[in-house]
């Protein structure tokens, strides 16, 4: 099997636990992400999602293991990996537009001023920010608008990999819905590879090609990789009617509710730990002609 675009190999992270000992957040975690794929990672608070993300971004050094992108080991942050932080991280002294041009100027140093501004305006328009709004400072924008700016900043740089850490965590459900659709739109236009952390099961099903499920920590594991067998383009109002929707959702709820605890807290024993691929598809022709939605059929394929 050829190597995926992004491959995480036997990644381990330990921190001092504050009581003299060491806390192993995860060890020997291995997984891959294909080019153009949208992958969400779901897991309980504190299991180590942000820790993985910081390593992928190059903002933190793992205790062991490597992350390879296009076959090259990641060391330190890079413009090829754009990050949208949970708290937006806009520079408050710059207007929305300037926040976006800040990124573009760093990425395309030879571009003229006009070109930079034009590019920024285009990406801001893609997330629905046009007119006077883009000249306002972040403090004069609503939470949803700020998050849009920060998404525009990340996409405008056209990174090879986009990392999103709970980008909608602080937003109300309505705003969240609109921005999710904008994110999908901009993603389908740009064919970018996205790795996103979320707490929200429905959000993950709407957005992702694949969901990685993480068990509780310490010694957290990325236990399963669930394929989302719902065709695109997806709309929030329509996917709930798809036969696979509740089957996948139930599986995820079961995992987070029960199995994330049951599978937690086991040392790897030196083994590389890859997620088990799971495919739930009630529409597949070789399945039962009358599928019962309460009992999803699991196809666990060992990779």
């Amino acid at each position, binding site marked *: 099997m050829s190597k995926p675009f992004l491959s995480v190999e036997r990644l381990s992270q330990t921190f001092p636990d504050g009581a003299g000992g060491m806390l192993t957040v995860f060890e020997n975690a291995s997984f891959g992400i294909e080019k153009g794929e949208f992958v969400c990672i779901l897991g309980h608070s504190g299991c180590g999602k942000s820790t993985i993300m910081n390593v992928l*971004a*190059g*903002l933190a050094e793992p205790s062991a293991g490597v992350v390879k992108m296009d076959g090259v080991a990641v060391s*330190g*942050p*890079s*413009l090829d*990996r*754009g*990050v949208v*932080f949970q*708290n937006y*991280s806009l*520079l*408050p*002294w*710059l207007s929305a537009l300037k926040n976006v041009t*800040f*990124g573009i100027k*760093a*990425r395309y140093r030879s571009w003229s001023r006009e070109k930079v501004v034009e590019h920024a305006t285009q990406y801001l328009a893609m997330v629905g920010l046009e007119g006077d709004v883009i000249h306002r*400072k*972040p*403090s004069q924008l609503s939470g949803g608008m700020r998050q849009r700016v920060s998404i525009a900043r990340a996409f405008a*740089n056209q990174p090879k990999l986009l990392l999103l850490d709970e980008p909608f965590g602080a937003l109300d459900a309505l705003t969240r819905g609109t921005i999710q659709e904008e994110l999908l739109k901009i993603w389908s236009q740009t064919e970018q590879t996205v790795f996103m952390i979320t707490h929200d099961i429905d959000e993950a099903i709407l957005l992702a090609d694949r969901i990685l499920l993480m068990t509780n920590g310490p010694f957290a594991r990325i236990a399963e990789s669930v394929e989302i067998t719902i065709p695109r383009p997806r709309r929030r109002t329509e996917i709930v009617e798809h036969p696979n929707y509740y089957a996948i959702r139930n599986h995820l709820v079961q995992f987070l509710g029960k199995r994330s605890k049951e599978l937690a807290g086991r040392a790897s024993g030196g083994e590389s730990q890859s997620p088990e691929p799971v495919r739930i598809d009630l529409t597949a022709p070789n399945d039962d002609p009358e599928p019962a939605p309460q009992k999803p059929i699991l196809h666990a394929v060992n990779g």
Partner: protein
Amino acid sequence: MLSVNKRAALLSVVLLIVALGAWEISVTRQVMGEALTEYEILMGVGQPRAAVPPPSDVIIKAWEQLSNPFYDNGPNDKGIGIQLAYSLYRVLSGFALAAALAIPLGFLIGMSPVAYKALNPFIQVLRPISPLAWMPLALFIIQDSEASAIFVIFICSVWPMLLNTAFGVAGVRSDWVNVARTHELGSLRTALTVILPAAAPTILTGMRISIGIAWLVIVAAEMLVGGTGIGYYVWNEWNNLDLTSVIFSILMIGLVGMVLDTIFATLQRAVTYAE
């Protein structure tokens, strides 16, 4: 009903008139009473015209002085404009030197915990020293009263700027630094485009405190070194027993101090951002 601002302005004018009126009346009485207090006997030896002048005299003096502020009739008779210009020159050069040292050094201390720990004991010992205590040493080493005055300004304005810069730089949110890192900005660009604007309000607060202290200290320093400047002017007029001029120059010191503070307050407002 008048707006709050108008009412406040009206009240200010009333207070001013009442204060000046009370001053005028009490001084005229005192002159008529002509009884010398113990202090006057000690200090003024009961000379004529040694009494506190009434505000009307001060206003006339101000008019005279301000209508020709830049005359120069030799070392002991220069216009108020020239004296203030000398003081401002000293304050601004000492302040500029201090800023040139304190802001880069503050950046270093703010960004590096090692530099902070290494320099902290020196700062803690040097900071509480009254700037005037350096004067004899400065005069001895520099051998030049002009440069010594500037040095005293330098030493008193360096600390607030140094500490505020270090504090502001150390307090820059790590998220913003991470934004710079994920955009592969070099350290110089990070310092200029992220850390400097982020810490600018704190740095300017330090500069505003410094310029205020420098303006307080220059008067005392010029009383010591003499020659020129508003501090020397005050002392000289006291020796001439020209209290009208003393009061007038006190007012001028206050006005210039207010202008300096207003300038830095404006700058501070310009770089302040809301989170």
